[in-house]
């Protein structure tokens, strides 16, 4: 019956199924990949035709602003700390000569890896500019092949692991969003429309009513879970290093936890609006801020660190990282799983105790 509702309201259906996909792509690939006027620094010990042309081409490009020249190799280390440049281009010595005589020259592209999305974008722009120049050289001179090989170096975050961190985080967020918010809102809607009154005055046990309202969201969550995993594995290249079975069980446990949280909210909230607010303020915010998705928990003030321990998503995301990225087995996430189980039991018991067979 709830399925009828969900799919009758086509936009809800689209939102429920497409939103997770959209979110993971947004978070995963960075919200803005278009970068303009990034500051560029250049270390050019060769100072020859080739390097000059490349630097001119870079400077002429809308994406880059030539900020400064670096004069000594030592400065390379410190320039990222001193100024806010996004890209440092380091040419090898005797660049053009090497290119002419050996057919090969090296250029190093150093970026700030703390912002992996910007870094990779900058690198790909710079690489294409260098490749253009290389093509020009080849076009002019039909002689030997010239090979300029850009070497990319990321400071601070050599493996671009943001995506790896994001995927478990988004999974946690999306599941909370769908399970908790949608179930609590859908039950609150019955109260608001007055249909709960009619449902209560029927032989169906009220608990069964609520369970039947939750069931479709459970299924939708499972579909979302699958689509999220498919996207992260095939589109974003995040491997599932650990056991898929453990991963699934862990996620199902978390889905149940989120659903029971929704049930609890629905026993308190009287209107759709308050259910929405409660889940948005009480869940989405803490989940996104305190689960370690956006900010590392270790860096938070003590009070927030303590609060973070009560966010179920934090434990789920931790466990998910262990299984998915680190490839650890079940034994390593026993702590997380038992905490999640404990939370589930507490939530189910509280909402059952809170559950009303009447209107008040």
């Amino acid at each position: 019956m709830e399925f009828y509702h969900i799919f009758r309201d086509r936009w809800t259906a689209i939102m429920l199924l497409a939103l997770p996909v959209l979110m993971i792509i947004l978070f995963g690939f960075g919200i803005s990949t278009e970068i303009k006027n990034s500051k560029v620094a250049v270390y050019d010990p060769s100072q020859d035709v080739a390097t000059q042309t490349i630097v001119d081409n870079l400077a002429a490009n809308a994406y880059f602003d030539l900020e400064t020249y670096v004069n000594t190799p030592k400065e390379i280390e410190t320039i990222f700390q001193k100024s806010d440049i996004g890209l440092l281009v380091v040419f090898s010595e005797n660049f053009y000569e090497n290119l002419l005589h050996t057919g090969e020259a090296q250029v190093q592209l150093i970026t700030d890896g703390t912002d992996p999305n910007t870094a990779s974008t900058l690198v790909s722009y710079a690489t294409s500019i260098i490749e253009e120049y290389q093509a020009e050289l080849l076009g002019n001179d039909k002689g030997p092949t010239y090979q300029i090989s850009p070497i990319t170096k990321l400071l601070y975050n050599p493996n671009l692991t943001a995506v790896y961190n994001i995927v478990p985080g988004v999974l946690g967020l999306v599941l909370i969003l769908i399970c908790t918010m949608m179930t609590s809102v859908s039950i609150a809607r019955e109260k608001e429309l007055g249909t709960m009154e009619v449902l209560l005055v029927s032989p169906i046990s009220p608990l069964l009513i609520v369970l039947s309202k939750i069931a479709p969201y459970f299924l939708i969550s499972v579909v979302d879970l699958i689509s999220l995993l498919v996207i992260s594995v095939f589109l974003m290249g995040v491997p599932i290093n650990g056991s898929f079975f453990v991963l699934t069980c862990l996620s199902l446990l978390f889905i149940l936890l989120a659903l029971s949280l929704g049930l609890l909210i629905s026993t308190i909230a009287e209107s759709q609006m308050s259910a929405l607010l409660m889940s948005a303020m009480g869940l989405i915010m803490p989940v996104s801020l305190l689960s370690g998705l956006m900010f590392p928990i270790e860096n938070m003030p003590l009070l927030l660190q303590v609060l973070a321990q009560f966010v179920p998503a934090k434990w789920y995301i931790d466990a998910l990282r262990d299984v998915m990225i680190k490839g650890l087995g079940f034994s390593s996430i026993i702590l997380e799983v038992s905490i999640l189980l404990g939370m589930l039991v507490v939530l189910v018991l509280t909402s059952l105790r809170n559950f009303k067979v009447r209107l008040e």
Partner: protein
Amino acid sequence: MKAVTAQHIKKSYNGVQALKGVSLEVEEGEIFGIIGPDGAGKTTLFRILTTLLLPDSGSAMVKGFDVIKAYKLIRRKVGYMPGRFSLYHDLTVVENLRIFASLFNTSIEENYDLIKDIYQHIEPFKKRRAGALSGGMKQKLALSCALIHRPEVLFLDEPTTGVDPLSRKELWEMLKKLKKQGIAILVSTPYMDEASLCDRIALIQHGIFLKTETPQKIIAQFENILWSVHSKQMFQLLKDLRSNPHVLSCYAFGDTHHITVEKKKAAPHEAAITIAELEAFLKEKGHLDIKIDPIQAGIEDSFLELANK
């Protein structure tokens, strides 16, 4: 066995006393009307009788079952139609009906004879979403849903509010047919003119039953002398009538005013003022086309008389 009994039901909501000790008895196969203005406590009473609310004190039984202890049994036996439209707007007519049939573990076909008369009106629109129905249609659908499991007692909270006059008439005709099937019907309404369609009525105001009787007896028990007055300046007339010391009360009733007139102390069946005297009084105030007639009291007159006691 009585279909419904209630003794001294009291209920407070957020500090407001919605019911201040209400008692009633409804016989099997009776249409029992609970009539009173908005906020009188009608919905609260219905919710207590349908086991949705617990009374603060007092007791109630539906079909011999206690509303507090045996609420599960009562929920099998009653049909309830809340005041506002409480069906699924986004589902079609027939989907709504099917859901309620399945809630009660029955099917549309099984009890089709009971709802046939009502459902026929909306059957042409059965593929339409319930939210897109007219007010009258919605109520017919809600009634069909409340009846789909062949309830023994039917609770209808303001079924005719917001419904066009023709549909109101049709709804009441349906209730009469249902009554013949032995179903006890409790119906609440703010419309006094619907009182005469009930077997017995209870007039309710501020959480108290003013009187429980047959509509005929309530009217017969009207104690005052009642006249209707009409003139060209109706608003001024209301003020002027109230300024007359022999006029006890004066209310606007459509295109006339109903007044109750003081009685002679010596002869309690005669008015202290004659129609001619009142006419002269009004003429002096500058009224034209004055028309004064003695009239029979209606339920509304009785209600106002009881409410002012």
